């Protein structure tokens, strides 16, 4: 080997090593690595049954079991465009580099997945590979679903195939170069898809293992609540620390006492997941509202408790931009407390005060109480602006309570003013939203 060749070879070797190291550093730990205990294959785990359906459905038909699991995996919210038939796809995902559309996963042979064999379906859900061999974009959370057992994935398939086939072709994606190169997802998947089924941690309780399976393999909490790394994959070094997803802030759900769930009681967490509301913590809106309506509210109570047990174990991650404590109740009189934003106050008086009250404690329903919610205590006011724009609706056993959408009634300037007033009056620190910020928030959620 000539001296020149040797140098080139060394440079190449160093580059490959550096790239490999870079990949490992960017990828970071897996979603369950924090638990740290010894892991065993499911077949060798005897302490409990973390996978499948709850006990009451053990004897149910394959389709019924699949229905429970499909709801637990929340397939419907992404695979249904509002107003269209369930699971017929077409929902737009607005990304910084273009728009992705969810696919039709009904059993229609031309436009849906009617021709999928069991293996085709497993390939898509666990490996991110379409029937024609093309790679899925990770908007489809197959890096989470990959932890599902084959049995559970195929039960979901049986359920989907039991529903009416809908003929509906999703619009073509409008991604820009290089993101429109699907083949690049081969490399992405090789790095970021753990491509392994769930392995119980024997140092943890059976309840924890069930919760881990539900939260990681099915409910895919991290897809919204974990920040992303340079490769747009989940950065589990900051697991559940919160992130902005689809224009909404998914708050910190780590066990951090100040800004996570560390100070929520079990009853609070159970209530929030199953009803979308916990007294003093506010109500689920936006994407979490949908997750409650279509997924968590359908969970068996023991499964909700398992998720709570699991969430408790996730190491604390502080959110430094949030206050250490949420603001107390505001004064009952409009004259006291924050009054600097005259325009915001005017909008609040005419559109908001009749339901939310001047103190933030709603005279109508605890579900409309602003005091104590992260939304009004977030100095970025992201979710306050989004709820004002698109409204919110909570379904409960006692019926629905809703807030109308004000996005068409008020200008960006007025929405910014009222969001700034609301965060200053009911939160710890007023936001500084401008009309431009509100326009951008609208853009991220507009259908």
């Amino acid at each position: 080997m000539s001296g020149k060749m040797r140098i080139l070879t060394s440079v190449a070797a160093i580059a490959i090593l550096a790239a490999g190291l870079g990949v490992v550093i960017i990828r970071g730990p897996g979603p369950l690595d924090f638990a740290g205990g010894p892991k065993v294959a499911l077949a060798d785990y005897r302490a409990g049954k973390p996978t499948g359906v709850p006990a009451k459905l053990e004897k149910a038909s394959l389709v019924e079991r699949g229905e429970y699991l499909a709801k637990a995996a929340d397939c419907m919210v992404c695979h249904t465009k509002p107003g269209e038939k369930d699971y017929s796809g077409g929902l737009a995902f607005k990304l910084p580099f273009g728009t992705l559309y969810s696919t039709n996963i009904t059993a229609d042979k031309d436009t849906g997945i009617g021709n999928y064999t069991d293996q085709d379906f497993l390939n898509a859900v666990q490996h991110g590979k379409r029937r024609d061999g093309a790679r899925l974009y990770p908007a489809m959370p197959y890096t989470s679903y990959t932890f599902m057992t084959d049995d559970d994935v195929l039960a979901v398939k049986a359920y989907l195939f039991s529903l009416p086939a809908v003929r509906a072709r999703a619009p073509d994606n409008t991604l820009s170069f290089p993101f429109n190169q699907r083949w690049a997802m081969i490399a992405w998947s090789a790095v970021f898809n753990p491509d392994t089924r769930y392995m119980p941690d024997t140092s943890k309780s059976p309840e924890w293992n069930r919760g881990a399976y539900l939260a990681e393999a099915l409910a895919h909490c991290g897809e919204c609540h974990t920040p992303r790394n340079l490769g747009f994959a989940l950065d589990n070094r900051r697991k559940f620390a919160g992130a902005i997803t689809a224009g909404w802030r998914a708050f910190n759900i780590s066990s951090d006492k100040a800004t996570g769930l560390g100070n929520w009681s079990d009853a609070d967490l159970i209530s929030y997941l199953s009803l979308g509301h916990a007294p003093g913590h506010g109500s689920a809106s936006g994407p979490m509202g949908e997750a409650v309506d279509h997924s968590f509210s359908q969970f068996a109570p023991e499964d909700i408790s398992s998720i709570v047990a699991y969430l408790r174990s996730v190491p604390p991650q502080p959110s430094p931009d949030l206050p250490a404590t949420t603001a107390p109740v505001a004064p009952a009189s409009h004259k006291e407390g924050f009054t600097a934003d005259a325009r915001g106050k005017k909008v609040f008086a005419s559109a908001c005060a009749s339901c939310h009250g001047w103190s933030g404690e709603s005279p109508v329903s605890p579900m409309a109480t602003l005091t104590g919610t992260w939304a009004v205590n977030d100095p970025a006011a992201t979710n306050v602006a989004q709820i004002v724009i698109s409204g919110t609706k909570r379904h409960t056993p006692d019926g629905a309570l809703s807030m109308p959408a004000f996005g068409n009634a008020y200008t960006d300037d007025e929405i910014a003013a009222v969001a700034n007033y609301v965060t200053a009056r009911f939160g710890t620190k007023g936001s500084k939203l401008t009309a431009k910020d509100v326009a951008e928030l609208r853009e991220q959620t507009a259908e």
Partner: protein
Amino acid sequence: MHMATTLTINGETKSFDAPPEMPLLWVLRDILGMTGTKFGCGIAQCGACTVHVDGKAVRSCVLPVSAVANRTVTTIEHVGSTPAGAKVQKAWLEAEVIQCGYCQSGQIMAAAALLASTPNPDDSDIDAAMAGNICRCGTYVRIREAIKHAANGQS
């Protein structure tokens, strides 16, 4: 799903069958026949449907009836028997506030709730309490005047 519901409305106990998510306004108007409370926008933005729940002014068009179980509801039919309501109604007549009248049940309910909690409101109190009640005839000037008269006990 219909459920037997019992509410205390204007001091009387009323029982009826209604779905739990039915807005209180529909129960009042369509089931109980109390049509003094008006339907305006249906999204809590005009104030025509204002009633009192535990003495506070709320919009009945967005309030599911299940949310007011065990709470006290007062409507325009009965507000004249409360001290603040009586003063407001008297002042309203003296000042000839009403033009077409459609919003006025809600205006009177909002004004009565204001006077019950703030017996001597200034202009900013009136603005803060009444901003959510709109009037297409533009009687706002007379509404403000009447509220001040009611507060002073003048007429």
